[in-house]
């Protein structure tokens, strides 16, 4: 299926193109606009972006694969990033990850069987003073306790943990 942006998002792309002296510089912001609509950067998205910015698909792919936030495979409805760098780990980052794995029934790097959540390990997310923390989609959740994390998961629709 060929990809196309909604009219509203196409307007965003037009505005982005006016910011830079050349079209290529808009590549990363344009990829963001596409991923926000489509959820991931599929081959069809790459082709569309390449054509829109007059680049080769190989150029677009080279950029997509460099940056960890661009997904080159489909992901769950929500993506949970758990920070495991030092400041977070000193304050329980590992326990947060273990709790998430248990509750979602998947390991970091995987997606829950209901397809709702993809769990990823993150490197320092610039919230070290509010450790431990996770990012769910665009939102930071900081100063976590396990109870607090459970409430957040409830609010985004995670199934209750199965009894071990």
């Amino acid at each position, binding site marked *: 299926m060929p990809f196309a942006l909604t009219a509203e998002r196409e307007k965003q792309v037009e505005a982005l193109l006016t910011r830079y002296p050349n079209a290529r510089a808009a590549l990363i912001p344009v990829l963001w606009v596409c991923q926000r609509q489509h959820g991931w950067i599929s081959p069809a998205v790459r082709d569309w972006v390449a054509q829109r910015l007059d680049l080769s698909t190989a150029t677009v792919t080279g950029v997509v694969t460099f940056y960890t*936030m661009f997904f080159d495979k489909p992901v769950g409805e929500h993506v949970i990033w758990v920070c495991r760098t030092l400041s977070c780990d*000193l304050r329980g980052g590992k326990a947060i990850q273990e709790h998430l794995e248990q509750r979602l029934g998947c390991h970091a790097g995987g997606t829950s069987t209901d397809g709702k959540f993809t769990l990823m390990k993150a*490197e320092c997310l610039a919230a070290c*003073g509010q450790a431990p923390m996770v990012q769910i989609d665009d939102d*930071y959740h900081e100063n976590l306790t396990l109870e607090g994390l459970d409430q957040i998961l409830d609010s985004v629709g995670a199934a209750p943990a199965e009894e071990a």
Partner: protein
Amino acid sequence: MVADYEPILSSRYGVPDAHRLAVAERNGAYATAKKALLTMRPDAIKEEVKKASLRGRGGAGFPAGIKWGFLNPKEGDDIYLVINGDESEPGTFKDRTLLNLDPHRLIEGALITCWAIGAHKAYIYIRGELAHSIAILDAALDEARAKGYVGARPFGKNYPIEIFSHPGAGAYICGEETALLNSLEGRRGEPRLKPPFPAIKGAFGMPTIVNNVETISAVPDIIRMGGETWCNLSRLAPRDGGVRLYGISGHVKKPGVYEAPVGITLRELIDDYGGGMLHDDRPLKAVIPGGSSTPVLRPDRMVEAEAEDHPLHEWHGKSEIDVPMGVDTFRALGTMLGTCCAIVMDSSVNMVDAARNLMRFYRHESCGQCTPCREGSGWLQNTLEEVCEGRGRPEDVALLVDIANNMMGNTICAFAEGTAMPMLGMIQQFHQEFVDAAAAGLPEGYRHDDSTRAGLAGDPADAVADGASTDDTSTDEVTA
């Protein structure tokens, strides 16, 4: 001292809705930019910034006024200002407070800087994870544009200035200034060989000044107060001027971002600002002073600076954490001030495990262009994994030192040194701990989050007994 300090850089943090232009303006925003653009010559502004001894807040501490002086544009060149808001050095979380709580200070600083350096366009590069910060900044830019402060005639002056945000997409290396420029241009975030330096050939092949978010945010106060007055707020004036944001994370009671004069000590940061150690029965073991790339310090190690002409002579015989935090003082101490965001570790932490955590980070983030960096960061991590899992060999400690030494010097960017230096520092400061782990792995049942893990479940009474502290009193030096 903490109580009666009047914040300057963060003066609007406590003002509700200071991210809205009208609120910021009622609290002082844009008055200085207006004055600077309408009444000051660019050279006069540059002179004040030089007098301020504003050392770059992104990690390297280069004086901003001197950097601006490197511009030497040819006829027809466009000059760019690129503001570094990548903030991905582990332990660092200060620029985000400026972006979220007071974006108009950054915009005002960008306007003054553009006028001073002859730029008509500024890009503010922000790491992609900070989607909300980007939205806040974009809204602030829209307001400033609507008011006419940003755009064709800022404050009525015939000197167009456009300012845009630009998102990253997840890559630590994009904080390195030339990688950031590649990323801005829509390329893979791989650092470029220097020279040419950005001031000569930067964004889109044009002369470019790259400065950190906090550096640019300090400019309005410098112009408002005068460079010398601002400089003298520092305890380390005149070489390292002004006030700055300090971050503190890890095992303290009140982690966070605090403003203070340049030159407070780590002990003050931990005790007076950070509220002291998290657990009264777990003393301070080590502190990484300014982001993960800066070599670790320990409170029980004393400064050796007997010679009268030693830059640290005044602190000879005192603890490393009693030296004022400055760019030059910390370099003399064998570490770096970096981003001025400290990671505090108590006696429950095993340094080999902490090293493994950081080397996982560096391995993951190396861009892979240079063999010593790509291979070296992988070997460091693999060796530490083996050692931590009890599969180490006695010679692994020397091997770690060897690998780290071989990473330095021959690479395109400073990432490799930023990996090797903290590795060497940890081994030097906690040698015996590495020897013990190479012989027998980490202590049985050890987890470095033990001191908070039980507390996480909401019942601190269950806190696991501290069985992990290896008190390293050895003063063995690393021989390499």
